Every structure is written in C-alpha cells, then in structure tokens.
C-alpha cells in the first residue's frame, strides 16, 4: 500500500486510541495524574494495572474519540508536563520493580508557546536519557501516529512494536513537503521518501515487530499474551544486561561511510 494511504489510515477517526488499548490490554487499571511540578496533561494517560495478572506501569498517548474529547486531549499532542508525568511513573515503576508498557499515538509534541516556556525540548531530552538506563523492562507499541521527538520520548525501549497501519517519522509528511519543496501538495512524495511505514522501519532495523490489525478482536485477544511473553523474556535478564542491550539497540542505528 502507498505510504501516504497508510499514514491516512493511522490518523483515521474511529481507530482505537491509547486508552482503548489500555482498557483492552490491562486489567485492574488505576490512573495516576500530574507531573507534581506544573499540571496534569490529558494528552498522556498513565497508571498502574495488571498484564496477564502481573503488575505493570502503562503510559499511553491519548487522542480521544469525540470532538469534545479530542479538544480535551489536545489531539494527543503532549506538553512538557505530559512527558514529565510519564517519567515520574517510569521512575515509580523502577522503584517497585515492575515493567513499563507505552502506547504511542501522536502527531508530535505540542508546538505552542506554553510548551516552549515550560521546556518541551528539555522534557523530551530528559526522558531519552533516563529511559536509556531505567532498570526495568520497557516495551513500546506504536498504535497510530509516531510523530518525531514527541513519539520517541516514550520509545527509548527494549523493543518497539508497530501496528500495521502506524507510522514513525522524523517529521510529518506535510511538514517535510512544505519545508523541502515549499509545496504542501507533495505530501505523497514526502510520505514515500521518509520511509516511515512499519515494513521500511523493520528493514532498517529500527523496530522489532509488526502487528497485523485486520482482525481487531484477534488483536485484543493475542496482544496481552504476546506482550506478557516478551516481558517475561526481558525480565529473565539482569537489569545490567537489559540496559546494555537497550543501549546497543540504539547504538547500531545510523548509516554512514568511514
């Protein structure tokens, strides 16, 4: 399928959102609010629950379904306090020794005045640093849009999985077309050039798995089991081994001549 069609599917309304994934994958969920510094960011839902019976910390970017929900969730574009809440809960997970599961679905971190004033860049940078050496397993699933640094701030993980109709890009195809070619109509060409759909990313070694999504019920049935199995495998390692592997996972990313 054409890359741009895939990107459009990833944004389609009616698609399960982060909170839908939390509700289908995790039982006994208790949401926790706030970054303890400024505010609670509704674009990120986070809390504790159980995955196949075992306690887990879950963090999800949430876009909302109705217009009212979408406005409340800022269309899934987090502010710095969202990333700081996520980090707070990751550190809490580390303290209590439970794994972290993240669901990514954002067109990007919010690009507004408040976000800048409160250090959007710093908030993302801190997550990248802290997640790299977090002592508990981290697994991130891309369920829709994976917009640049705003997605990566929840994706410095031991494994990254993607739904079939998700994307993960350095810039939105619209942004790319308008910056590079000063022509927003070249969005199709940009979508192809960015190589941001799951098959490309698997081939480039940037993700581990693609999850088929044609049968939604099957996905709700199998996903918790598959996640739980992967967490078991990750927990079989010592935290030192796991952190070393996590760093090595990113360390090898990059193509150049020498």
């Amino acid at each position: 399928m054409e890359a741009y069609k895939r990107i459009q599917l990833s944004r389609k309304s009616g698609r399960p959102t982060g909170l839908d994934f939390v509700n289908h994958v995790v039982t006994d969920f208790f949401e926790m609010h706030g970054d303890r510094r400024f505010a609670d960011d509704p674009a990120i839902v986070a809390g504790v629950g159980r995955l196949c019976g075992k306690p887990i910390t879950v963090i999800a970017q949430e876009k909302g379904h109705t217009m009212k929900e979408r406005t409340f969730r800022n269309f899934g574009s987090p502010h710095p306090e969202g990333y700081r809440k996520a980090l707070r809960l990751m550190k809490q997970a580390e303290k209590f020794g439970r794994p972290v599961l993240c669901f990514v679905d954002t067109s990007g971190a919010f690009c507004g005045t408040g976000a800048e004033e409160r250090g959007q860049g710093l908030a993302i940078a801190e997550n990248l640093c802290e997640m790299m050496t977090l002592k508990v397993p981290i697994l991130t699933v891309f369920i829709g849009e994976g917009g640049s640094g705003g997605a990566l701030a929840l994706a410095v993980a031991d494994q990254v999985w993607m739904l079939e109709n998700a994307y993960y890009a350095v810039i939105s195809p619209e942004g790319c077309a308008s910056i590079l070619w000063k022509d927003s109509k070249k969005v199709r060409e940009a979508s192809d050039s960015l190589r941001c759909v799951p098959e490309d990313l698997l081939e480039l070694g940037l993700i581990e798995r693609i999850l088929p999504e044609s049968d939604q019920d099957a996905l709700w049935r199998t996903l918790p089991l598959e996640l739980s199995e992967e967490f078991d495998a990750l927990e079989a390692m010592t935290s030192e081994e796991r952190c070393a592997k996590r760093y090595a996972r990113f360390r090898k990313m990059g193509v150049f001549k020498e």
Partner: protein
Amino acid sequence: MLKSANFKPSRNQLENMGVATAGSGFTEQPQVPDQLCTKCPGCGKTIFTSDMRANLWMCPSCGYHFKYPARKHLLKICDENSFEEWDTGLRSTDFLHFPGYAVKLKSARLNSRENESVISGKAAIEGEPCAIFAMDSRFMMGSMGSVVGEKITRLFERATEERLPVIGFTLSGGARMQEGTTSLMQMAKTSGAVKYHSDAGLLYITVLTNPTTGGVTASFAMEGDILLSEPGALIGFAGPRVIEQTMRQKLPKGFQSAEFLLEKGFLDGIVPRPEQRKVLAQLLRLHRKEA
C-alpha cells in the same frame, strides 16, 4: 591540528546561487554574504564584514553574535595547537535515496569545507583537558543525521573512557529529514552516550548558539550539567514559524531567546564570546578531580 593558516575565508557562492539551502526544519537567518559590508540584524547598522570577522564574528557596534564557523570558534576557545580532531573520516550517505540529498551533501561540503556539520576532538582550555565539539551552520544548518549522531556518541564514549569532561557548542535546525527515522534515532543514541558519561561522574557543559532547535535541543544540547548560551541565541524545540502557525498569533519579540530562557529558568548563564574561554576554563578547574 588547528592552525589559523589552514583557514581560507569561506566562499558562499553556492548559497548565493540558491543551491545550498537548509535541510532542516527552519529558515536560515540572514547569512553573512561575501561582501565588503553587512547589515547587522542586531542594530541595523551597515558594518564592514572584515571588522565583524576580526571581532570574533560579532557586530563591532552592538555585539550581535553572527554565526561563527565551528572551526574558527574552536580555534579561539582552545589552547594553541592543543586541538586533536577525532573521527574525521565519517561521511554521510544518501542511503534512503532521498530526493535531492546527494546534491545537498555535495554543496554543503563545498560551501562549508567541512565533511559534516559537527567537528569533534580533544583539546585543552587554559591547560584544562577536555573533549570538545562545535557545530557549523554552513553544513545543512547543523542538522543531525547519522554522522552527527555517531560523532557525538563516539565523543562521549571516548570521553567516558579517558575520563574527560565534555564541552559542546550546539547549533542546529534539528534532525536531518533526508535520513528519515534513522535521524530521529540519533537523538536516543546520543542521549544514551551522554547518560553513561554523566553516570561516570563526568562534567558536560553546553554552550547553545544561534539557533539551537528541534531534535538537537530535545537531546544532547539540553543534557549538559551546565547550560550556557551566547547572547541573543534562538533556543527552542519548535521553530518560531511553526509555533505561530499552531497558535495562530505572532510571537512576542524575544520569545525563545537566550535571555527569555534564562528568565524562565532553563539556562545557567549567558556568556558572550570574549568571555567564553575564561568562563569555560574556570568551570573546568572547579570540577577538576584532584589526584
């Protein structure tokens, strides 16, 4: 070795022809053209380009900091003949066959006379040893692709091994979109290397220069123990135009400037070019571990 004799004045003829354009998210501010005179964006006065260049690339009238070529900046900061360049052989490739990237790389190399937008190595400042890097606006606006990510990562890994503090002059329009998601991953890779350097108890000082935005701001630029900036530098995650489009309003003057960030609590200090060497040496000495 860095020697001033090795540096010829930069020729911006490709830029004037419109061949080399920024590959990153944001428009370039007025570059210094290869002309006798330059209009200062700070005070609006017309100044002699040679006077500006002789004055650490600052306006002789108001002190406006023009974009400093990375190698010239390093030369002014480091002790004479102390700079040993690392990882000079790394070259970017157009591995995604991204439209126009191969040509852009070629013109960036010609335009900047550098192999990439970051120069890294080891040096001494007033006798204090450190690992050091600087980024160059003339190479695709300091955008970060695989080579920048790899050079920064190697610098921090080697600094960790040799137990050296790191000093970094950042300048970037963001992640390099022509290398797709792989560019984005450089943010995580460099952050990991910074974290291990930090966990080893070693010092990292960043000096943010105009402009530092996008993926570089959201990774190694903001991860220093001490965050300094040049006066007037634009520092942000999103570029001003993107914010204006999102908010549908004009930004107030000075929004995202170094002075604004200092007031909001995101910088330790603003250090103009004539004081940088002294301040960096002082901070290095204050963190020196006596044997």
